[in-house]
């Protein structure tokens, strides 16, 4: 017979954040800083790590200062911010879709922004600002469209994913069509944008991104609590008092805005959104959306990708999207293989 009632057999419950998560967070932060120093120090004009740090602290000579502060630092910072935004967005979407393959793609944002940008580049011929603005607007409109079409007395994750797939496929076909009809120089420019690139990113990219993220990240942290509950099923969460539909909408909104900010900064580098949360989850072995660790992982992935992209083939610098795709894909494959080996009975 069950006899124990309140307090007779107290069970100690650990409530601090698991030690492992904290270790991982610290390690990732250090990695970001180390990569920042490397990113700023490598290039046609190499600067030693010591000099980098000195210059950042305001004690370098004017030539080094120019290279660091005008050319390399803003690019690296843009990479960090965009990577963090994408990592966080990916974590949110994967939590909502209850599926490790969730990403901003599911709400059609990526396809929408791509279609708008390619249209801008090949048909209208707009400049950088026009492209960034157009891609953001295109992405947001698509996300709204997908959400609206998926709404039928509430939005089920499954229906959202399906409709996102449908709309995305339509928009991708439009992109491919535009690519066949455009002039080759335009097509090449469009290709570069579509892959995601940090080339020529300056302070005019850093400041707006920083401001937006300063607003969005705290919001993300607050919304994450509800997200953890919704992972247990709509009904279980509702029973605990979570306003499920409203919470889901808010989270989708924030996730989409994070993606918009990153895309405006460097184009659609969505693989970071897909891989960063998965990698973070396996590093921390924690449950829950893990938005912050995903953000840090995203920053590492993006920065590492950019460093490699520039230095891999010294004569032909590649866009960062190529490397994040390759790195992320390879790492995910390795992780899957590892998991399988560990699970062998």
């Amino acid at each position: 017979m069950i006899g124990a009632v309140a307090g007779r057999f107290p069970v100690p419950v650990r409530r601090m954040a698991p030690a492992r998560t904290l270790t991982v967070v610290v390690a990732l932060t250090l990695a970001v800083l180390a990569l920042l120093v490397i990113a700023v120090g490598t290039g046609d004009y190499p600067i030693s790590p010591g000099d980098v740090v000195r210059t950042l602290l305001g004690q370098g000579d004017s030539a080094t200062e120019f290279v660091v502060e005008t050319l390399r630092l803003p690019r690296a910072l843009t990479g960090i911010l965009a990577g963090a935004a994408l990592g966080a967005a990916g974590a949110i979407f994967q939590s909502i879709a209850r599926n490790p393959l969730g990403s901003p793609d599911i709400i059609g944002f990526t396809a929408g922004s791509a279609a708008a940008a390619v249209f801008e580049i090949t048909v209208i011929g707009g400049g950088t600002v026009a492209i960034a603005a157009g891609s953001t607007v295109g992405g947001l409109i698509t996300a709204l469209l997908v959400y609206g079409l998926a709404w039928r007395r509430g939005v089920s994750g499954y229906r959202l994913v399906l409709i996102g797939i449908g709309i995305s496929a339509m928009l991708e076909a439009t992109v491919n069509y535009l690519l066949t009809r455009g002039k080759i120089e335009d097509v090449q420019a469009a290709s570069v944008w579509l892959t995601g690139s940090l080339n020529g990113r300056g302070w005019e990219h850093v400041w707006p991104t920083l401001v937006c993220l300063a607003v969005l990240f705290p919001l993300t942290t607050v919304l994450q609590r509800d997200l953890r509950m919704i992972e247990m099923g709509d009904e279980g969460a509702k029973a605990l008092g979570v306003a499920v539909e409203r919470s889901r909408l808010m989270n989708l909104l924030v996730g989409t805005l994070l993606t918009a900010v990153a895309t405006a900064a460097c184009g659609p580098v969505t693989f970071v959104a897909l891989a960063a949360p998965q990698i973070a989850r396996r590093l921390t072995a924690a449950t829950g959306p893990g938005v912050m660790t995903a953000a840090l992982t995203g920053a590492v992935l993006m920065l590492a990708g950019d460093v490699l992209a520039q230095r891999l083939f010294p004569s032909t610098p590649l866009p960062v999207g190529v490397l994040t795709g390759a790195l992320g894909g390879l790492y995910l494959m390795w992780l899957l293989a590892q998991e399988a080996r560990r699970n062998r009975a």
Partner: protein
Amino acid sequence: MTRLLGERLTLSYDDRTVAADLDVTIPDGSFTVVVGPNACGKSTMLRALARMIKPRQGQVLLDGQAISSLPSKEVARRLGLLPQSSIAPDAITVADLVARGRYPHQGLLRQWSKDDEAAVSSAMAATRVGDLAERAVDELSGGQRQRVWLAMALAQETPLLLLDEPTTFLDITHQIEVLDLCAELHEDQGRTLVAVLHDLNHACRYGTHLIAMRDGAIVAEGDPQEIVDAELVEAVFGLRCTVIADPETGTPLVVPAARRR
């Protein structure tokens, strides 16, 4: 006195009406059990009472107020639900899952307090899952998992607790264990319990107030000892039987008629 009731409820899924013009009252301080054949609407009614479903017509009142007008967290502090099926997030430990039951009592400014700690401890002790605290929920057996979900609902510390088929998929020892625990919650802690049960004999043994449903309507309700007889069982379930007194508890025991040879 009653804290939870439904007035003239019409409940439907898409185009299919499950119950029409249903009035249901949960007596305060009772252990109410709801029985009926498959698809009679008992789970639907329970979920409407728990505000999971919005009634097409009619309303559910909690403490005299329409439940749909109360903030969800406020409802969650007064009324708990153990749903029929829930998803355990990947690799979550027992302790973490039970701790999530404290959500309605927490907020941005109130993160984790001694009260939360105590509630989780006693919930885990009551359901005897204390030694499973660090295990992953998806590694446990069906019976253990059900007890963990029950612990989570208990950690919510609500005076009203609704349970949707809590004993399905459990072996008989665990069924009795869960029901005994419910009885304890009812008698020792004074909670009001409403449970949908598929086993009529369990319902008679443990319930203090029985609601029998068929085709979306309440056929009979009251003290099981007074209302459960062979006639009622035949009317509700279409089953011919004899009703005797349970040798252990004296409550009605339904013995189905033997197959004619």
